[in-house]
């Protein structure tokens, strides 16, 4: 059975870009959320194994959402995908429980490479 993935990003185009880039990747996409509050509801419902998480979002940002998710489902592997490309934000996310961190702009290659690393899979294309 494939691992379950939740995509969290306030951009609908970005959500669909991630979905398209992962169409051949062995993950079952169980939902998409546009802010942290929606994401928490979907985590409670689906208990995803993997989450891609934006940071700058309305209603509840990705760092706050990450803290909440770690309290609900600490085994989930959260990878932050954000335009905030300073090191401190990345470190802050890792301290709060994120397992990976990549900066936008994210293309198909950088996304699958980051997921390979997160899930300790054989590197795509090698």
């Amino acid at each position: 059975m494939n691992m379950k993935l939740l995509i969290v990003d306030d951009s609908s185009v970005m959500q669909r870009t991630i979905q398209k880039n992962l169409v051949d990747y062995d993950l079952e996409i169980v939902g998409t959320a546009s802010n942290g509050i929606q994401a928490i509801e979907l985590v409670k419902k689906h208990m995803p194994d993997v989450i891609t998480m934006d940071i700058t979002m309305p209603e509840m940002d990705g760092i706050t959402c990450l803290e909440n998710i770690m309290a609900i489902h600490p085994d989930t592997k959260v990878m932050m995908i954000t335009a905030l490309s300073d090191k401190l934000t990345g470190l802050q996310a890792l301290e709060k429980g994120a397992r990976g961190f990549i900066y936008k702009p994210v293309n198909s290659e950088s996304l699958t490479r980051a997921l390979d690393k997160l899930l300790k899979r054989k590197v795509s294309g090698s």
Partner: protein
Amino acid sequence: MEVNKEEFESTCRLFIESVSNYFSVMTDHDSEINVPFLKDITQLELKQYTGMIGISGNKQGYVYFSANQDLFEELINIFIGIDDPDTDDLMDMAGEISNVIAGNIRASLGTNFIISVPLVFEGRPADLEFPEDTFVYVIPLTWRNHQAYVIVGLQ
């Protein structure tokens, strides 16, 4: 905190690098940056769709990414493979690009360069206001024959 002209131009160079990197990473076609110019923002004609990010923290101001429908349509086609995006998609795309361009600046300026969530608008709203005492730098660019502006305003 006020920004002097030298510091402002240095910050604008970061935006040029950021927008160039966006098109380079996300598409097979680099953008061409044309000669930036200083402009009275009240006289600048915006393109069809504009994403705006507010800047606070150690700098105060805004950054816009403004382009016509055809540029956003082509990007959406490349990213998700649809030919006929609706207006929400076009505005979403404008917001996302402005978010990435502004957010990437934090690699150089750090966490005190605080950005807002994107505000997106079509055309030029009548009530659009610009802060006074701002340096406004317009960075024109061309990507696959589509023209766009990155507009940086810092107090």
